């Protein structure tokens, strides 16, 4: 019965969406943290190197010929180990350059700078990545400005960074996993009412329960209510249909008995004819009621243009009553709609208009409008109308107000049934045209 591929499962949607977002945010967060740590570590190393540089500056002396030399040995023994990874270089004044022993036969290319500390990277003699701190300096008594460089291997701190990265990934990974699990649990918990509803629906289909329970959350309650509405209506209709069939069967028994009795002797034609008329009326009546009942159930989403139906029926009646030259006027706005089956509206309007046509002197008018109370239909004629005390009689089952034409009373009682089944009511009154005015009010379906 299902027509196409099912849409993606809600659980899958919710979980997949959450996981995607989670991954993106964790990756971004992790990336930002890693970069920040790297930066902090580098800054810290730079300050350490700067401290060494400042130490060098403090220990520097100006020799008599104007050059600058470090007088005391610098604290760190690595300056004396070849390619140790820790280097210094002093350039100036002029072309003179002194280097640490660790630099051996290499050089650190100085960059023109200023009095402030400059930090940059270079490739060292071993091909290692160096962090370089350097300053331009003026020594009193020196022949010119001096440029001092201290450089350190970044390997010193990279191990720490790598360790942090591993820690970060593990932590974020675990966090992500934990959140994913939480999301899955939350989704399952959140969608539980839907699973409960599926179970309840299966029970209803199997006949284990007559309708869905009332305890669903706000978001799915309308669905459950609509379903229950349909189920209740179905049950009601089946019951009514059964009643009608029973009533019809019962009602026919007496006339049939009378006919049988007549046929066993010398049959009185008038008696038999009368019984036939009665049986015919009963059948018409109950069939009419039963089909009214059958049609009323499935009214979800139906919409019929009242003006169109009224127009079609008056066109037919103009032909049927053409001898009488009646004027049929339809005074209905295009937007007025009947929220039910077209056949039911045709039955209501058809019977009312045919009735009006039978009694009218020269004109019949049909009007309709929608308001807060629902749909209101009025059919009026300029005939004799009916006396007020006969109003109640007019809608009684099978009653004939007058023998104007066969089946007069039947048409109105069918209309009364249809109106009742659709939850509305029928009113009679006097029209300003001079005759009868029949008004049908049909409320909006809740």
């Amino acid at each position: 019965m299902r027509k196409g591929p099912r849409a993606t499962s809600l659980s899958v949607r919710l979980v997949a969406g959450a996981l995607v977002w989670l991954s993106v945010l964790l990756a971004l967060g992790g990336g930002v943290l890693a970069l920040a740590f790297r930066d902090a570590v580098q800054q810290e190393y730079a300050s350490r190197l700067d401290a060494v540089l400042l130490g060098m500056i403090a220990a520097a002396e100006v020799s008599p010929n104007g050059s600058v030399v470090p007088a005391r040995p610098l604290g760190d023994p690595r300056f004396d180990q070849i390619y140790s990874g820790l280097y210094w270089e002093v350039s100036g004044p002029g072309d003179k350059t002194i280097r640490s022993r660790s630099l051996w036969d290499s050089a650190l290319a100085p960059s023109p700078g200023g009095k402030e500390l400059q930090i940059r990277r270079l490739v060292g003699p071993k091909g290692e990545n160096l962090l370089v701190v350097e300053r331009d300096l003026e020594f009193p008594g020196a022949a010119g400005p001096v440029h001092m460089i201290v450089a350190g291997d970044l390997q010193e701190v990279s191990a720490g960074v790598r360790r942090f990265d591993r820690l970060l990934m593990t932590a974020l990974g675990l966090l992500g996993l934990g959140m994913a699990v939480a999301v899955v649990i939350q989704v399952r918990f959140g969608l539980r009412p839907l699973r409960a509803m599926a179970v309840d629906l299966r029970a209803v289909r199997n006949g284990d329960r007559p309708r869905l329970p009332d305890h669903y959350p706000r978001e799915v309650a309308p669905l459950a209510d609509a379903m229950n509405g349909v189920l209740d209506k179905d049950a009601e209709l089946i019951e009514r249909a059964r009643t009608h069939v029973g009533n019809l069967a019962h009602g026919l028994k007496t006339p049939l008995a009378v006919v049988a009795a007549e046929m066993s002797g010398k049959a009185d034609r008038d008696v038999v004819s009368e019984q036939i008329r009665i049986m015919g009326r009963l059948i018409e009546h109950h069939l009419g009621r039963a089909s009214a009942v059958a049609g009323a159930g499935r009214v979800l989403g139906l919409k019929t243009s009242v003006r169109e139906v009224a127009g079609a029926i008056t066109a037919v009646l103009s032909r049927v009553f053409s001898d009488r030259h009646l004027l049929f006027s339809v005074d209905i706005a295009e937007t007025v709609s009947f929220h039910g089956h077209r056949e039911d509206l045709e039955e209501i309007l058809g019977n009312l208009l045919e009735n009006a046509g039978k009694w009218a002197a020269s004109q019949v008018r049909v009007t309709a409008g929608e308001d807060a109370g629902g749909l209101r239909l009025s059919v009026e004629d300029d005939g004799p109308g009916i006396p007020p005390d006969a109003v109640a009689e007019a809608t009684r089952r099978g009653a004939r107000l007058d023998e104007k034409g066969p089946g007069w009373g039947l048409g109105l009682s069918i209309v009364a049934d249809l109106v009742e089944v659709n939850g509305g009511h029928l009113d009679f009154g006097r029209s300003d045209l001079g005759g009868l005015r029949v008004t049908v009010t049909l409320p909006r379906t809740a």
Partner: protein
Amino acid sequence: MRVLVVEDEPALALRLQQVLEAGGFAVDVAYDGEEGWYLGDVEPYDAAVLDLGLPKLDGVTVLQRWRDAKRTLPVLVLTARGRWSAKMAAFNAGADDYLTKPFEMEEVTYRLRALIRRAAGHAQPELACGPLRLDTNAGRLTLDGAPVSLTAQEFRILSYLMHHPGRTVSRTELMEHVYDRNFDGDSNVLEVLVGRIRKKVGAERIETVRGQGYRLVEAE
């Protein structure tokens, strides 16, 4: 006037035939949709009574096919379904009137007469031609107010002529609308009958148009 009855229930078909013949019609009967369609298509009927629930071909389809083939004869539809949606379907297919079962037999005669009269272009139920008056509702002919005694055949001839006053009706046309399919006579019978009618209503009323047919003379 000649009508076609298409009805599959034999008892009902027979009764309709009897009632309509008594009412002054020549009647042909078809018992299923195929036969009904065929007859309505090839024979010239003044009207048809068509049951909707037919074997072989349903009534609405028969009606639609007649209308598609431009057969404009008035059709009275019979059916058990009293719902208006069924009536609307019949009218949309081209029906001119509608009766639900069970119905009074007189109703069929009455309505057919009205349909035929309207189809011939007469707005009033009473057709007049000088002192001759035909009450189409009751199927009664009067001359200066006094009822005229005619046989069934004579009535049909005069009634047909009165529905088409002033027009020359050929012998063939007259025969086709006055006799049912089973008639196997010749047109001399027509001469004799017209002669008898002239004796009853006045010879000047019906004019013989040499070589063409007969014409009802309208009053000055």
